[in-house]
């Protein structure tokens, strides 16, 4: 028989499970089919996203005509099969009871001290299908405990039931096969090699999928019990992957975060940053508004600070708004409106990082207002994937997992860049070698074979780093129109894609509407209930905006979520802020900016507000507040109060803002294509750099175990350069401002580039070198 689904014929088989007749697609496993009709078969090793191994034997069922019980998790249904589970078969019931008794032979009775207690599949299934008591009278096996498989993950081997979920995850999903089943028989145990920890950005997932308490995390160990916790679904704020997470909190403190199943986005997984980096939510928060009086910041009441800020902004000259990448879509939209309506300026940018005019043009032409052009699911069936200025494992780890899934299904990946990374290796990617900063050359000079293979089923992923490589984005744009390949832009920060669509960048109104287009202006003016003529003209972005602030032509500033050390010209911004007439900062933690601001408003973090993030696909990922009782205001709330202090009405309600933004449907009018930008790669050795997933980022503070899993800070050079430098143990890289000396790592790097982590301990590129990606540096063997 066949079912027709999405015009696609699917072969099916007719089976009977516990007397219930079913028709299921061919290839369905017994355990999956039983789930569909609400029959729960016990299981430990079975996981829908991992290959079946039938390692734990807990799911034994009876099949008519088969003499012995069979594992339901590995048994594929075939036509006419009559399956009987523990509900209708004595054989299955006894078999399951026997397996459970065996599994419990070596399992310690330490549930009171075990973190899994209360949410443990072994506890639950021992109660439902196990025997009431054990006949085992010997000594249980014990191991020294716990041992670290890496700095964050702890292993209690005596609790393990050898289901191999963790080892299969490590190998199949993450591609980090450094967690394995060692020894044999009664001594079988999960472990790592002697001197090689389980080095993975996804290690936290093994804690979540462990069906017993064998794998636990150092950060959650003994912190609480499941019944203490309130669980709320959230969206991860750490990157643009847009993972659904579950935040568990106890009495106003987040105790842990877990991956939430979202088949369209993160499936069942999350990266370690998303899972473990949440201490910043509580630590070191700004608690009340601060105003500067006689050069010193002092606490002030909200009304006092509002009036102070309103008067300051009104008195100052031309103003600008800088929104960092942490804003939710609604908050970014509020900034976008606040700048245009209240401050009457279009000097606005959300890109608190290296950016370019070329990038702004690229975003307007290809990204803004274009939702779900390319999705995660598309990756699985793409023909070719091209990665340009993008390191998925570090910059969008869940996208990296999906790429791996695609690669297993035959997708071929090409990466254009200066370094063939560990991540590229795990994707079996083909390396298009490019000197850092001259990606444009590499793209225009791509092999005709690769270009020929690109079609409308191919995807070009461009990272935010491409902005630092002159000409790269226009080359991508040309390649896209030449081959029909779809282009997806993957920023690093969670708020950037949403801020773009909310119009938090000069030249673009919400929905990707060009501010210079009369139709676009009138559409927005209507939605905002203002006169189209009162909308400002195109303002400044990026570097130009920072220069204008420094030179004083822009003298008032509203700034939120910006860390000057993320900007290539951060020093200029700090100088500008020091000279500015008035600076309003909206922040949750103190920074270089708040230290110099005229007034500081504390704002809510993700657990205290509702909102949404838009991930790289353009998918809206709404979330609600975990702490509903929190009194902190959102950025939009503060801006609304500030606006009303300046006699302008601006709705600050998240839901109303979302509704209004959604009413501004994406722009369908004409878009200007990217200009052909001049390509100029600096001569000599150039700097290749990006942020590692686990690094010195401010949102990762306060979690030492996570920090200890970071990859070491090294200087990566090619074998040829290593020889040329005289095989030094350490290498010194020098830029205009200073130098960095780090241990050498010989890797597959372009001979004309040298790679350093961008913001890791001992390697803060902008602060220490004073230059950025693709710029000339000098390289020397040995210390400075």
């Amino acid at each position: 028989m066949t079912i027709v689904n999405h015009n696609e014929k699917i072969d099916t088989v007719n089976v009977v499970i516990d007397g219930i007749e079913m028709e299921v697609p061919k290839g369905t496993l017994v355990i999956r089919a039983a789930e569909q009709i609400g029959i729960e078969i016990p299981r430990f090793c079975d996981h829908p996203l991992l290959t079946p191994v039938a390692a734990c034997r807990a799911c034994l069922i009876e099949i008519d005509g088969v003499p012995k019980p069979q594992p339901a998790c590995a048994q594929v249904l075939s036509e006419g099969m009559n399956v009987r589970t523990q509900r209708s078969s004595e054989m299955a019931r006894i078999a399951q009871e026997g397996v459970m008794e065996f599994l419990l032979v070596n399992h310690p009775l330490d549930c009171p001290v075990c973190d899994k207690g209360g949410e443990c599949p072994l506890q639950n299934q021992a109660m439902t299908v196990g025997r009431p008591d054990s006949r085992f009278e010997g000594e249980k096996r014990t191991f020294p405990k716990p041992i670290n498989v890496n700095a964050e993950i702890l292993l209690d081997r005596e609790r393990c039931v050898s289901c191999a979920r963790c080892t299969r995850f490590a190998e199949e999903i993450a591609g980090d096969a450094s967690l394995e089943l060692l020894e044999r028989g009664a001594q079988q145990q999960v472990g790592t090699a002697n001197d090689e920890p389980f080095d993975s950005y996804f290690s936290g997932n093994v804690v979540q999928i462990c069906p017993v308490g064998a794998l636990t995390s150092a950060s959650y160990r003994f912190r609480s019990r499941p019944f203490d916790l309130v669980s709320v679904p959230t969206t991860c704020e750490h990157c643009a992957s847009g993972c659904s997470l579950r935040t568990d909190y106890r009495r106003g403190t987040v105790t842990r975060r877990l991956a939430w199943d979202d088949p369209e986005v993160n499936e069942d997984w999350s990266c370690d940053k998303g899972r473990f980096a949440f201490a910043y939510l509580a630590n070191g928060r700004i608690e009340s508004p601060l105003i500067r009086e006689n050069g010193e910041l002092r606490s002030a009441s909200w009304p006092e600070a509002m009036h102070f800020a309103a008067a300051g902004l009104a008195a100052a000259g031309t103003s600008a708004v800088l929104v960092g990448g942490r804003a939710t879509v609604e908050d970014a939209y509020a900034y976008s409106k606040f700048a245009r309506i209240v401050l009457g300026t279009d000097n606005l940018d959300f890109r608190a990082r290296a950016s370019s005019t070329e990038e702004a043009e690229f975003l307007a032409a290809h990204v803004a207002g274009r939702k779900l052009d390319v999705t995660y699911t598309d990756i699985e069936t793409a023909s070719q994937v091209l990665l340009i200025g993008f390191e998925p494992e570090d910059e969008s780890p869940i996208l990296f997992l999906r790429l791996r899934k695609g690669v297993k299904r035959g997708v071929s990946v090409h990466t254009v860049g200066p370094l063939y990374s560990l991540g590229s290796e795990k994707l079996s990617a083909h390396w298009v070698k490019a000197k850092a900063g001259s990606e444009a050359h590499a793209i225009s000079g791509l092999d005709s074979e690769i270009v020929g293979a690109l079609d409308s089923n191919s995807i070009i992923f461009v990272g935010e780093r491409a902005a630092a490589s002159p000409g790269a984005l226009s080359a991508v744009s040309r390649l896209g129109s030449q081959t029909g390949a779809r282009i997806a832009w993957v920023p690093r920060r969670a708020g950037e894609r949403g801020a773009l669509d909310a119009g938090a960048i000069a030249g673009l109104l919400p929905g990707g509407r060009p501010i210079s287009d009369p139709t676009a202006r009138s559409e927005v003016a209507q939605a905002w209930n203002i006169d189209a003529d009162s909308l400002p003209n195109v303002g400044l972005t990026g570097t130009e905006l920072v220069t204008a602030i420094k030179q004083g032509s822009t003298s008032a500033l509203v700034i939120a979520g910006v860390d000057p050390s993320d900007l290539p010209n951060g020093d200029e911004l700090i100088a500008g802020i020091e000279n500015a007439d008035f600076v309003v900062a909206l922040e949750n933690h103190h920074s270089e900016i708040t230290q110099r601001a005229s007034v500081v408003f504390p704002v809510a973090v993700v657990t205290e507000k509702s909102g949404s993030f838009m991930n790289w696909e353009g998918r809206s990922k709404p979330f609600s507040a975990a702490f509903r009782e929190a009194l902190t205001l959102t950025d939009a709330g503060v801006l609304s109060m500030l606006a009303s202090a300046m006699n302008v009405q601006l709705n600050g309600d998240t839901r109303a803002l979302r509704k209004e933004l959604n009413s501004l449907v994406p722009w369908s009018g004409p878009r200007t294509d990217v200009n052909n930008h001049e390509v100029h790669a600096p001569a000599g050795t150039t700097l290749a750099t990006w942020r590692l997933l686990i690094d010195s980022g401010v949102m990762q503070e306060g979690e030492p175990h996570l920090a200890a899993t970071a990859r070491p800070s090294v200087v990566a050079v090619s074998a040829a350069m290593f020889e040329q430098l005289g095989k030094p143990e350490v290498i010194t890289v020098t830029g205009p401002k200073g130098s960095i000396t780090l241990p050498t790592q010989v890797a597959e790097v372009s001979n004309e580039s040298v790679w350093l982590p961008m913001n890791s301990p001992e390697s803060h590129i902008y602060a220490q070198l004073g230059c950025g990606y693709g710029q000339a540096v000098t390289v020397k063997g040995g210390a400075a």
Partner: protein
Amino acid sequence: MITESTRIKMRELAGRYPNPRSALLPMLHLVQAEQDEVTTEGIAACAQELEITQAEVTAVATFYTMYKHSPVGKHHIGVCINTLCGLLGGDAVYDRVAERLGATHNGPSADGNFWLERIECQAACTHAPVMTVDWEFMDDVTPQSAVDVIDKLAAGEEVWSTRGPMIRDFQATEHTLAMAEDDLATIGNCVDEKMLAGLKIAKSGAQQ
């Protein structure tokens, strides 16, 4: 230390298989041939040559009991204690040998020159009880003959397998196991009348 010449041998082994990973078992024997045990360094070398993780190599090296994780010494002594050998005196042989060596199961002798192990069936039940020295057969041993063999080995005297080549040492055997380039398999009487007796009876149809 794993020398460059060992690594060349490893690469040669890896080249013998369509999937290089298949060479892991002989490569681990090669590590034992070089280092008398599977060392962390040897595991790292195998991992590096096969481009797999050290954990994957460790998983294999700890699964199979022929890989040892501390120095074996000069000779490996195995005594079969499975049903037939055990009944015909294997257990007694094991006890005497253990006493002579001052060793326990899967551990070194007191002087560190021998390694004792209770082994499972070697498919040599016709000559039970069986002892192996560096995996060569010593057929029809008695507690006394077994100890004699060990005394001779300890004294550095020449000892021959009852049906194979002269005993060399553990590391030499491991090298043979890694890459059998010698003709040791052809030395001695691999098959004798006793072993074929059952087959002959079966063929003659006497059992029917």
